[in-house]
């Protein structure tokens, strides 16, 4: 047994040695032992949940086997990564200007046997850079990939207890030529969304809030049969004009599996207020309607990411579920849903 282990270890050691000597040979072939950056590509991406990051791709002349070190400054606005035995090819610019969504620029500084890459932003904060060394493929050269996540700066919201004087946008999803999801008996999401929104509006006005509705009847907000993006951008533009404190989009859920059910709330991280708004609404809504709690979740939804103020998109229930479709048509249930969202908004402004 012991011999067998030694044998396996020896085999692994041999394999590693063979592998290393192969890599070393490859480095040697490429020139003076220094790897060149032949091309720089930057891509800013956002994931499904709306988390943004900047990716810097360095195309290399050969495999990179040296040491590197990444340092984030104390403010998180400057990240530098130092690579041993790396240099820029002569045709590569030392500065790459970016759109500023994540970083403003990438700067390269060369010294003997060292390449330092600096990523800076005037207004954003970064998380720690993640460096990945990638092997050559059929279609791509050896690469170094640097991923730089965008962190969100905390923002103080206009919070003061009570709803008096607060400006609140209610956005009943769909409408007019757009039915939204359709339930098993033909109930449309657009009709249910506006019923709940109108009851919520009454409650908010009675508490002294100023309510702005993106629609207050069964219409398209842009024009009939407009494209989806035209319709959503019309809603955001209309809401933005009023400089509201918060934006609430009212929706209902649907899935092919008719058993799916429950309540969920979505947000996009623009500041540290968005999750708090979603959380207050979700908690109070569950208390009032008593459906299955699907929780809060980050999402890259158009109306959430394109509004400037804290925003939440509420999915009250599943219109595709036979029981919940029926509930959604009942005035008593709509009242409970409106009350739940009302309480959530109230708790948000009280700083909860």
């Amino acid at each position, binding site marked *: 047994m012991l011999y067998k282990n030694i044998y396996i270890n020896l085999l692994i050691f041999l394999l590693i040695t063979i592998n290393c000597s192969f890599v070393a040979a490859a480095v040697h072939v490429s020139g003076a032992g220094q790897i060149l950056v032949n091309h720089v590509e930057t891509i800013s*991406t956002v994931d499904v949940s709306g988390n943004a990051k900047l990716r810097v791709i360095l195309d290399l002349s050969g495999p990179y086997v040296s040491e590197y070190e990444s340092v984030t400054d104390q403010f998180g606005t400057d990240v530098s990564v130092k690579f041993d035995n790396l240099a820029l090819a002569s045709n590569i610019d030392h500065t790459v200007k970016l759109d500023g969504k994540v970083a403003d620029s990438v700067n390269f500084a060369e010294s003997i046997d060292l390449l330092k890459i600096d990523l800076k932003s005037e207004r954003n904060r970064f998380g720690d850079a993640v460096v990945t060394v990638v092997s050559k493929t059929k279609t791509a050269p050896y690469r170094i990939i640097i991923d730089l996540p965008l962190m969100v700066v905390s923002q103080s919201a206009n919070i003061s207890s009570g709803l008096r004087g607060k400006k609140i946008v209610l956005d009943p999803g769909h409408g007019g030529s757009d039915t939204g999801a359709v339930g098993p008996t033909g109930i449309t999401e657009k009709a249910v969304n506006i019923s709940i929104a109108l009851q919520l509006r009454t409650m908010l006005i009675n508490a002294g809030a100023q309510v702005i509705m993106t629609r207050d009847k069964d219409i398209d907000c842009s024009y009939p049969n407009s494209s989806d993006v035209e319709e959503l951008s019309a809603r955001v533009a209309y809401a933005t004009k009023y400089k509201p404190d918060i934006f609430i989009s009212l929706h209902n859920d649907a899935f092919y599996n008719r058993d799916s059910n429950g309540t969920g709330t979505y947000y996009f991280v623009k500041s540290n207020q968005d999750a708090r708004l979603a959380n207050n609404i979700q908690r109070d809504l569950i208390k009032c309607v008593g459906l299955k709690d699907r929780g809060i979740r980050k999402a890259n939804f*158009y109306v959430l990411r394109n509004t400037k103020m804290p925003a939440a998109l509420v999915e009250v229930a599943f219109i595709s579920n036979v029981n919940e479709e029926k509930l959604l048509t009942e005035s008593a249930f709509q009242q409970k849903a409106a009350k739940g969202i009302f309480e959530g908004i109230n708790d948000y402004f009280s700083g909860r």
Partner: protein
Amino acid sequence: MRKLALLGIIAGTLLLGGCFSDATTTNGTPAVKPATEQVVLYYANKDATKVVVEKRDVAPDKKTMQNAVTQLIAGPSDNRTHSFFPKGTKCLGVVSKNGVATVDFNDALKSVKTELGSGEQMLLIASLVNTLTEFQGVTSIQISVNGKLLKVLGDFDLSEPIGRSDELIEK
């Protein structure tokens, strides 16, 4: 003779579709036929709260992004999971450039607006981007319908390429 054997595997894969894909692998042991490669597909879990992974073995020449998307549309082999795509959806092609895969669909994709809620539209994107980023070199996706790039799918913003999400995978 070798060509014939390969044809047989392809025909077998085509005929069986997703239904018996487990027949060629056993958990924890290597695939029976070394001539197959693995695709990693992401479907909806039962309540559409997360995406669930399903690994399938396919003939090497069937390991293309378009085939993977076609299998996503066709649905999982397990009836506790579900496809996110509306009936009639067809993948017309996938083109990959600079790490961004652009997936082209027919008009049927647009009925997600009447069939799915916003959260499920997001999970549809997660199932697509997670499946395609399993292919080497792909880091994000865009969607087009009949060749025209979409800016939104339902409520989901597609104004820039969308990267993978591991937090939406059911563990």
